[in-house]
């Protein structure tokens, strides 16, 4: 099998994370000869989505391999439900009850395992801003046809010990009863002036606020505490310390994406964020990229062939692969090829919960972004994403909820207090009517921050950073474009790929003689 693999490529990409996949697609698109490898048996690396079985394997793998714990550590998985389904008798009873209350199914670890294929659990859950760089790139490159999306239906925040919807669009402000009419005017004025903000224009509204916090600005503008909460925590996703201009920029990004696909600015990829790197891989393959999973590399060496030209030589499974450019994910990269890490990094605390209901009832199945303000002094804001069966993330009746924040001590300590606010973590009877959904399963873990601009120590080697704690893919897209520009200076980054029906093959132009019906009849007769 190995013998089939050619040995010389223009570009070799190692790792199928988001950045690597975009670079691979971009190079292949302009007809570079690309080989794309991954040491594991699935796409995405740390950006992957797993079904329930795959996730169990991943947890086992990490727990048994100390090398992997450099990237992912503090894993803590917990069940809140029984191993097996209740016995037949009990089931019968439940069914009788079910007649009056058919919605509640009793889940067990066994029923999770039975429906494992219906789960798509993200290691790096992220949203797309409707007018963000990734959406624009998906459209302009025509890669969007490989993916489907759902609109986030609501943005929530935690205010006065309650979950409350955030009025973020014009329609929301109009419809909400949570704020008075004068507040509505204030909020709209604030949002309008933020949208009008232009960094180039020196004499703008915010010019004197360079060294002050966003909160100070909002307070100065006379916004009521509720409105400040909405704008600062929910729309800008900030904290009390957020600098004013950063807050304005974040708000503007949020507001500019409103109204394109729905009433919130966000899209969620169907079947999980892990689909997106695969979309780019597919385009790469369509344009001739060669794929090889389960293919770890053993060593990387750079050689100078002629004046200014380098060759990168990779040893993989006792085979020597040569290329002009090596694009490599930071987690797959030999340490000596990475330039010293930036001094300041902040690891990420993450958690995944599977629950038996949404955190806040709604008419149609919701898709929620919840932004918690820091609950403790000095803590960070927590981002929560709740996705349901309609996104292909879990079986009917369940919800998958992701928590993301910057690490302070460890994932569980950082995130459990927030989870306690919105879930019932006590286990127990699943049919019980409670205000909060029951948590059935949870996983806490920390991820090493490898998102800092990873520099490369060798010519011809381009290192891609790992997932960041941010809400969107913007940094990944930006970095991929930078790497592409270095490899192929002056070339267009992912020009639009034609649809299959648009491709006209040259030999199609002249048509053959028209089909003769008589012949067919004659043939038929002859056979008879």
């Amino acid at each position, binding site marked *: 099998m190995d013998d089939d693999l050619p040995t010389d490529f223009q570009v070799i990409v190692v790792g199928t994370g988001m950045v690597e996949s975009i670079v691979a697609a971009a190079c292949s698109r302009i007809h570079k000869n690309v080989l794309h490898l991954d040491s594991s048996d699935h796409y995405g690396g740390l950006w992957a989505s797993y079904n329930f079985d795959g996730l169990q394997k991943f947890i086992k793998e990490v727990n048994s391999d100390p090398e992997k714990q450099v990237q992912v550590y503090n894993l803590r998985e917990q069940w809140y439900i029984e191993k097996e389904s209740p016995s037949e008798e009990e089931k019968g009873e439940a069914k009788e009850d079910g007649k009056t209350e058919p919605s509640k199914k009793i889940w067990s670890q066994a029923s999770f395992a039975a429906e494992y294929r219906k789960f798509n659990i993200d290691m790096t859950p992220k949203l797309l801003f409707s007018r963000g760089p990734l959406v624009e790139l998906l459209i302009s490159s025509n890669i969007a046809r490989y993916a*489907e999306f759902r*609109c986030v*239906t609501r943005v929530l925040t935690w205010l006065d010990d309650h979950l409350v919807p955030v009025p973020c669009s014009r329609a929301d402000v*109009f419809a909400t009863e949570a704020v008075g009419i004068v507040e*509505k005017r204030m909020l709209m004025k604030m949002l309008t002036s933020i949208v009008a903000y232009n960094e180039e224009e020196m004499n703008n509204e915010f010019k004197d606020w360079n060294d002050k916090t966003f909160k100070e600005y909002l307070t100065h503008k006379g916004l009521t505490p509720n409105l400040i909460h909405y704008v600062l925590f929910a729309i800008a996703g900030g904290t009390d310390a957020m600098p004013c201009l950063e807050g304005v920029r974040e708000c503007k990004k949020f507001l500019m994406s409103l109204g394109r696909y729905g009433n919130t600015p966000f899209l969620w990829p169907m079947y999980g964020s892990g689909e997106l790197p695969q979309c780019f891989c597919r385009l790469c393959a369509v344009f001739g990229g060669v794929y090889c999973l389960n293919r770890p590399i053993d060593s990387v060496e750079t050689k100078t062939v002629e004046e200014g030209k380098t060759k990168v030589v990779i040893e993989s499974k006792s085979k020597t692969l040569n290329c002009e450019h090596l694009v490599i994910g930071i987690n797959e990269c030999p340490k000596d090829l990475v330039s010293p890490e930036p001094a300041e990094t902040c690891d990420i605390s993450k958690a995944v919960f599977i629950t038996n209901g949404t955190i806040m009832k709604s008419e149609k199945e919701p898709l929620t972004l919840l932004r918690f303000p820091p609950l403790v002094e000095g803590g960070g804001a927590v981002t929560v994403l709740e996705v349901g069966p309609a996104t292909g993330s879990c079986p009917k009746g369940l919800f998958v909820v992701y928590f993301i924040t910057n690490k302070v001590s460890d994932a569980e300590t950082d995130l459990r207090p927030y989870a306690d606010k919105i879930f019932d973590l006590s286990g127990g009877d699943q049919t019980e009517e409670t205000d909060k959904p029951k948590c059935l399963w949870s996983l806490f873990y920390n991820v090493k921050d490898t998102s800092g601009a990873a520099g490369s120590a060798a010519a011809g080697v381009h290192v891609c950073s790992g997932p960041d704690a941010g809400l969107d893919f913007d940094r990944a897209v930006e970095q991929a474009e930078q790497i592409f520009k270095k490899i192929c200076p002056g070339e267009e980054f992912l020009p639009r790929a034609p649809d299959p029906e648009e491709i006209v093959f040259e030999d199609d132009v002249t048509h053959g003689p028209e089909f003769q019906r008589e012949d067919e009849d004659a043939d038929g007769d002859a056979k008879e």
Partner: protein
Amino acid sequence: MMVMVLERVNCDQHGRVKVRTTEEEKARIEKERQEKVKRKENELDTELLELTGKVLMSNPDINTLWNIRREIFLHIRKDYSEVELTKMYDDELSITEYCLKKNPKSYCAWHQRMWVLTTRSDPDWKNELDLCNTYLKLDERNFHTWNYRRFVVSQCKPPLQDEFDYTTEKLLDNFSNYSAWHYRSKMLLHLYPDVEGGRPIQDIHHKHELKMVINAAFTDPDDTSAWFYQRWLLGAVKTSINLVACAVTESKITVAFSKPVPLGYVQSSTQIFINNNVLNAEWISCCGYQYDSLWILKQKVDLIGGMDIKILILRNNKLNTLKGFPNINLEKLDIQGNDEINVDEVEQFKQDHKFVTIF
């Protein structure tokens, strides 16, 4: 929630290769030329139906071709069975639907659809309402669709409340929507008409609608649609003219109306009888205006006790008789002979109409 396929967004901006479109255009012109010939020869057949269909699918705005199609339908329908006709009408609806996808604001395509539905014997209005929902989801401000919706609703008569709730839903999505506000006003008039008072709709709903306007105005004061709606809410107040007071003294009779009225109105709406004789006298505006709310009758006869005074007035376009006029000192006037007068009724009347006491 709607599944969104991003690429659809861009498909219009990236057309086919230029060469193909001009070829198509050539073919279209050629076909059109052929059809002209056909029509002259009065060949109204299914072949022409097919040809015009193809042309319309590439450009739905050629009204003449739709006309030809309708001619053909009327011409050939007697030759076909019910089943065949149903099929043909269904096809026609599909063509219009396709055309409307191409140009959702095509007057002729919408009109053709209406024509088909009113012409065929088995229209499926439910389906049409669903179509409206779909189209309004794509563009909630397309007044063609709203117009068509009103047509469909007038035919299939779904519960008005449902339609009303639909406008609420659409306005909550985006309140910059003249069509939705207007449709709403039409339904409010049917759902909650104010029969008694002077408002277009019942007070509680009137207040609720005004609150919506306030919310819209405070959200975006520059958006005119809600202000427009407010103008209707406030402007459509029925100000019926009422006689609010009437006073009779020895020397004059004074009437007061709820709003300024011209002399002609006073003359035609009031008539005074004394002892069953019409009192002919001149009404004079209190302030000397052409329109006045206070009018005085200069009469030559002194009013004294014992007279039977009757005032005939026009109220809500109906003639009412006021007998034993309440402001007249009942003792002064001999009313004992008139058994129609009931003091309680008079008191009630006083309260109802806020009569002022002059004496």
